[in-house]
């Protein structure tokens, strides 16, 4: 009998479940403050115009919000499609435990990308215009439409988690009670149909991702000579795609280790080190493309002097690509959660810096009298968005079955047995 219960526990804990943990901790309260601060500046933007909170002007029409909230946001949410490709398309079962966390990150990431676009465009109430007013020549149109469709796909991919959690458990209070059976019916209907068609959306998600990840690179190509030659190249779309793929797994590793730390679970090293072993080769390919492009266009001449762009280029390449590349190729790193975390953070830093460089550092418009740097308002909004994203993530893993909790860990086993008792 005893044996049986133990078996059940270990079996159940292979499946994702809600994390049971208290929501508010000191860290969470600090995040809330950052989020509030961001919202205050956002209110300013909506009441008094974009100029009232940003340093943007007629020479620098795009700044931190497009460079980080949108471009870097999309790249860092790439974990969603890379792990979907690995887990679902390749049917590698051992990676199933990372698919849901990655899906949730992508979903929240893209939601905040959409929010970033919403606050950055001057006429936010026309955000739907690209749906009906098409310009197939515009890279931005392509990015916009693709991101809209992909966001929808992500929400559809998330539906099974909702049905799994709430089917048979719809309990709303008060007069809302009358809706309970209807909601229950829809949940059951979704549950019956969704799994049959899910593969359509999963493949569509991967295709849409490769499309807009590369089109994001095409965005700055049209700026031509306004962009520093260290970054301006016709192969930008390829570089953007490969770097997005390279940051996919590091992002999953980063987030998985962070989550296990904050929920006091043991990190799933057997999965994470396998994921990590795939990062090295991808980073190698990226480095080869990047260097190849540099030698073909002979842009290394700009690296001779330590100008600001050159320093930014060196930082991006050395700290963000070469160092983590060496780390990821090392067996010791793959086995240690601390080193793996460091290496992943470096890749994330590298891609973040690369997007900032492409959209801000490299952009040198004619006639500008002073260079652009982000204002307190822009920084506040960006930090606020990141804080909100983390808070939503925390809330979601407590509501939905996202995280696979490692049964080897004592504390979890204890709470579980309490639940059973």
């Amino acid at each position, binding site marked *: 009998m005893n044996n049986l219960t133990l078996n059940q526990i270990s079996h159940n804990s292979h499946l994702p479940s809600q994390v049971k943990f208290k929501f508010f901790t000191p860290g969470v309260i600090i995040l809330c403050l950052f989020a509030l601060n961001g919202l205050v500046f956002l209110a300013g933007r909506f009441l008094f115009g974009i100029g009232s909170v940003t340093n943007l002007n007629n020479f620098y029409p795009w700044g931190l919000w497009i460079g980080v909230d949108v471009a870097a946001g999309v790249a860092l949410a790439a974990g969603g499609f890379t792990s979907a490709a690995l887990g679902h398309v390749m049917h590698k079962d051992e990676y199933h435990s990372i698919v849901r966390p990655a899906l949730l990150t992508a979903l929240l990431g893209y939601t905040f990308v959409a929010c970033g676009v919403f606050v950055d465009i001057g006429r936010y109430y026309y955000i739907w215009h690209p749906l009906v007013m098409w*310009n197939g020549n515009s890279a931005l149109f392509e990015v916009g439409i693709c991101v809209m469709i992909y966001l929808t796909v992500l929400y559809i991919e998330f539906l099974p988690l909702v049905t799994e959690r709430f089917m048979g458990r719809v309990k709303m209070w008060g007069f809302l009670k009358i809706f309970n059976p209807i909601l229950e019916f829809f949940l059951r209907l979704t549950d019956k149909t969704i799994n049959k068609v899910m593969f359509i959306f999963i*493949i569509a998600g991967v295709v849409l991702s490769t499309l807009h990840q590369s089109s994001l690179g095409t965005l700055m190509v049209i700026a031509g000579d306004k962009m520093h030659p260290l970054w301006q190249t016709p192969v930008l779309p390829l570089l953007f795609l490969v770097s997005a793929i390279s940051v996919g797994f590091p992002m999953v590793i980063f987030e998985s280790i962070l989550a296990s730390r904050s929920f006091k679970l043991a990190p799933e090293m057997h999965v994470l080190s396998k994921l990590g072993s795939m990062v090295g080769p991808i980073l190698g390919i990226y480095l080869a493309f990047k260097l190849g492009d540099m030698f073909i266009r002979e842009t290394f001449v700009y690296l001779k002097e330590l100008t600001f762009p050159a320093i930014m280029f060196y930082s991006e390449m050395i700290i963000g690509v070469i160092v983590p590349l060496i780390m990821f190729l090392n067996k010791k790193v793959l086995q240690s959660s601390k080193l793996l975390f460091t290496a992943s953070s470096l890749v994330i830093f590298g891609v973040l810096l690369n997007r900032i460089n492409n959209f801000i550092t490299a952009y040198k418009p004619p006639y500008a009298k002073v260079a652009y740097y982000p204002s307190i308002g822009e920084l506040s909004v960006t930090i606020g968005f990141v804080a909100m994203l983390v808070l939503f993530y925390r809330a979601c893993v407590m509501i939905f079955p996202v995280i696979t909790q490692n049964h080897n860990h004592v504390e979890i086993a204890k709470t579980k047995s309490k639940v059973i008792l």
Partner: protein
Amino acid sequence: MNPEEVNSKSNSRRDFLKGIATVGAGVAGLSYSAAYAGAENILSEDRFGALVDTTLCVGCRHCEWACAKAHKMPVPEIESFNNRKVFQEFRRPSNSSLTVVNEFENPKNRLIPINVKQQCMHCDRPACVSACIVGAFSKTAKGPVVWDSDKCIGCRYCMVACPFQVPTFDYEKAIQPMIYKCDFCAERQKGGDIPACVDICPVEAITFGPRSELIREARNRIKRKPEVYLDYIYGEYEAGGTSWLYLASKIFTEIGFPKLSQKAAPGVSESIQHGIFAYFIPPASLYALLGGLMWMSKMKKEIDTEISKEIEEEERIEKIHRIDMEGKNE
């Protein structure tokens, strides 16, 4: 395995393939309409242009006043425009002034400065038109590049794209901020009038007419007075050619013009875009490829589990046999 199970499995396989085919067809259908949605420029042979002769311009800035008046923008009395103090600062076209006149030192004669009127160049292959996410910009066959406020979402990608850094934006407006740039007086042109700035210029520094004739005229002027003019028409080839053309006595980069190649700004990005989306064949093939991969890996997994099930079954039977034997032995 019972027959029912087999049936449901092959059904799901058929569903799978059907699903992929439907999506493929949908994507192909989309591509057809998308292929014709792109803003293609049909340029008229006798499209209009304007030739600015900076050696004639006296910097009276009446063109600035006339332009504001013609666009119903708030504007002070014309007399105030004679104040030459504004030239101390280099200015660019802005929300309140779609065209601006700047002043530069004249190396040949310090007493007669060089004045240059600037505004949108009305490119033949405009970056703004190619870039605009909703196609709010369009190049009209007759020359003007115009902006449609009803479409614009205020993303400012046009400003990122424009090689001359011309369009400007209402950063201080929370609702319905506008994009501003010279529209070549498209409305007046439709009514048969010449642009307001051309009309008012007291010294005829701006000539309005068919672009091809303007180029001929510019060549003639250079030939007649080679000691005055640089042998160069700015705008003839810059960024793929522009409707507005300039003559000058001083190197163009020293009088406020960017040095640009002859390549049209949208050239590279459009060919990349069209490469990736050529009739949606690449995305559709990727879709099919991934679909195939997914199907194959699913099949493989099913076979694997079946095999392992069979093995388990065999082992179970063997075990039962063994227990049986042992029982008998006892």
